[in-house]
């Protein structure tokens, strides 16, 4: 078992080695998430989306930066604010939108909803609705990759699991049990706390001891940890990359406090009375998309025209996703009885895959 250190990776700047095309792709991905979420809110207000719905606006740099720092076959898992992670991982917007519309074309055939985005080909293991409950699952994914690589294939552990959680999950037993098991079993998992400062309406200082420095929690579990500015995708990437590579090489868990901000309410019905408009404006002025755009225009010659074209393309893509979702029919009533158990028995009708996966081999 390792010893815990709290450190910021000092001079490391792996993002510097990336070409401007990569950064442009990040900008595009963040714009896509933002536009997707804007249209999600509209659709919710139009009652095309029901249930609980949590949007990711403001936190885009976290999902996109983290996804960029791992391999495509490294598993990821998150909580219910999951649209950004799905899109950052490569899920097409139409499957996510159709899922929220409760249509058969959705990533889970309309049976999961906003909080339950799953995407097997992109190694996205959900989308989980209970705060903290995804943490033991994340430990299990890491256990499984290591077991497959080492016990079944006889090689070396070569995959890293990213397990995202909100700061509210810090206070759940499931989080602590997962951290302890990951430590004691040497699992290659990184617990990423997307620390947006509020668990619903409760500011972190009101609910979490040591809320001003949550990396201290990692010390007790023997983990390396770091604090990352989640409003800057370059910092997210630069912070995550070395941690991920250490985790991959050493098969040791780590913990990250990525400090971010959700511009909107906890869910669609949140009047945000627990925080000031000034605080919101302060973060919005520090917008992660603006930051990357500025950097690209200053250092890599991104023109306003190019940015505008990029924005237009993203808007078109999301508009088409909405149209596609609207055209997708509601699931047939027979879907009620599929995917409960695998076989036909009693009322159950076996299992089938969503359209997103059909004719597609798992990569």
């Amino acid at each position: 078992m390792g010893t815990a250190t709290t450190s910021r990776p000092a001079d490391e700047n792996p993002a510097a080695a990336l070409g401007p095309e990569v950064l442009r792709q990040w900008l595009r991905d963040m714009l896509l998430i933002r536009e997707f979420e804007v249209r999600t809110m509209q659709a919710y207000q139009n009652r095309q989306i029901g249930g609980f719905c949590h949007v990711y606006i403001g936190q885009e740099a976290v999902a996109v930066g983290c996804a960029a720092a791992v391999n495509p076959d490294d598993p990821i898992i998150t909580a219910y604010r999951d649209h950004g992670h799905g899109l950052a991982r490569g899920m097409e917007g139409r499957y996510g939108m159709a899922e929220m519309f409760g249509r058969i074309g959705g990533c889970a055939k309309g049976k999961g909803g906003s909080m339950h985005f799953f995407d097997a080909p992109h190694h996205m293991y959900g989308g989980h609705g209970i705060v903290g409950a995804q943490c033991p699952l994340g430990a299990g994914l890491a256990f499984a990759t290591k077991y497959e690589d080492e016990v079944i294939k006889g090689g070396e552990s070569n995959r890293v699991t990213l397990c995202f959680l909100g700061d509210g999950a810090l206070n759940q037993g499931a989080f602590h049990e997962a951290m302890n098991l990951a430590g004691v079993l040497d699992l290659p998992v990184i617990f990423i706390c997307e620390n947006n400062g509020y668990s619903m309406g409760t500011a972190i200082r009101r609910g979490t001891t040591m809320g001003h420095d949550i990396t201290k929690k990692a010390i007790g579990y023997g983990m390396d940890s770091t604090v990352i500015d989640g409003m800057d995708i370059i910092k997210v990437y630069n912070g995550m990359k070395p941690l991920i590579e250490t985790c991959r090489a050493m098969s040791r868990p780590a913990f990250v406090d990525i400090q971010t901000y959700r511009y909107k309410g906890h869910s669609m019905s949140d009047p945000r009375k627990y925080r000031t408009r000034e605080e919101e404006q302060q973060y919005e002025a520090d917008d992660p998309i603006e930051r990357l755009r500025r950097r690209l225009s200053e250092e890599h010659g991104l023109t306003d025209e190019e940015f505008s074209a990029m924005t237009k393309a993203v808007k078109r893509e999301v508009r088409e996703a909405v149209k596609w979702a609207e055209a997708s029919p509601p699931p047939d009533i027979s879907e009620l009885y599929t995917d409960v158990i695998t076989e036909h028995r009693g009322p159950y009708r076996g299992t089938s895959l969503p359209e997103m996966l059909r004719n597609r081999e798992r990569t």
Partner: protein
Amino acid sequence: MSRTIEFRDALREAMSEEMRRDARVFLMGEEVAEYNGAYKVSRGMLEEFGPRRVIDTPISETGFAGLGIGAAMMGLRPIIEFMSWSFSLVAADQVINNAPKMRYMSGGQFGCPIVFRGNDGAGGQLGSTHSWCVEGLYANVPGVKIAIPFDAHDAKGLLKTAIRDDNPVFFLESERLLGVKGEVPEEEYTIPFGEALVRRAGEDCTIVSFGRPVGFCLEAAEALSKEGIECEVIDGRTIRPLDIETIVRSVRKTNCCVVVDQSWPFASPGSEIAAQVHQACFDDLDNHVYRVHSDDVPAPYAYNLEQEMLPNVRKVCEAVRGVTYRE
């Protein structure tokens, strides 16, 4: 060829054979490895399979139950041992909110081929917190399969089926049965889920039960036979799926039915079976279905109180006499 082995050894043989057969199968739980199992079910398995496949965990049910579910989502086939099913309650969110719903919530993308197993039901003066019969709680949840074997033969055959099943299986063992010996074939076999076993044929009254109380029913049937009442004793073997057909066939013959279920009476497998029998056999029944359960109180410590609270031979006999109008 068969030999006589203990129930616990039958469980171990099932796990070991399946682990030899499929590298994706592993065993995880409290004290399963170095301690050789809190109840010696996994004795010797660490030696054979090593610490990568027989894995000790801390006392952390939410953590290791959830870990198993995550591993199952990726295609491994975990066997997660609860030292007692009573302790599964601290992992209830993982056990009943995640495992049985994963395939449904993910639209068929991620299954959960996991076996949770361990002691269920009263062990013997363990008091209320350690004497849970979880079938009454968990049978309510769609997406789970629940097996509850009565003897060594079924323990082995059903557990092998459970490990090969693509769905989450809750495997409920009884501490009081672990040392009971039974005939187990040398050669490999499995027992399909959803197939009840008629353990004793009779014409006068059908008795349906699961797990340890099946023994009380057989004993009661022998006693009642001396009174001239011949009981047909059906061992359901799995609660989900439930082999209602075998039960109905028997009730149509005997016209009387007693359900013996060690969980509490309210909203239980016993009440479910009674409802289904009333629905399917309304015109066949000479009396309403009688039920024998644990009394509707927390499990007590005192020996005499615990014996009175649990299903027992006396209660089964009384119910059979009642349902057949022989009181």
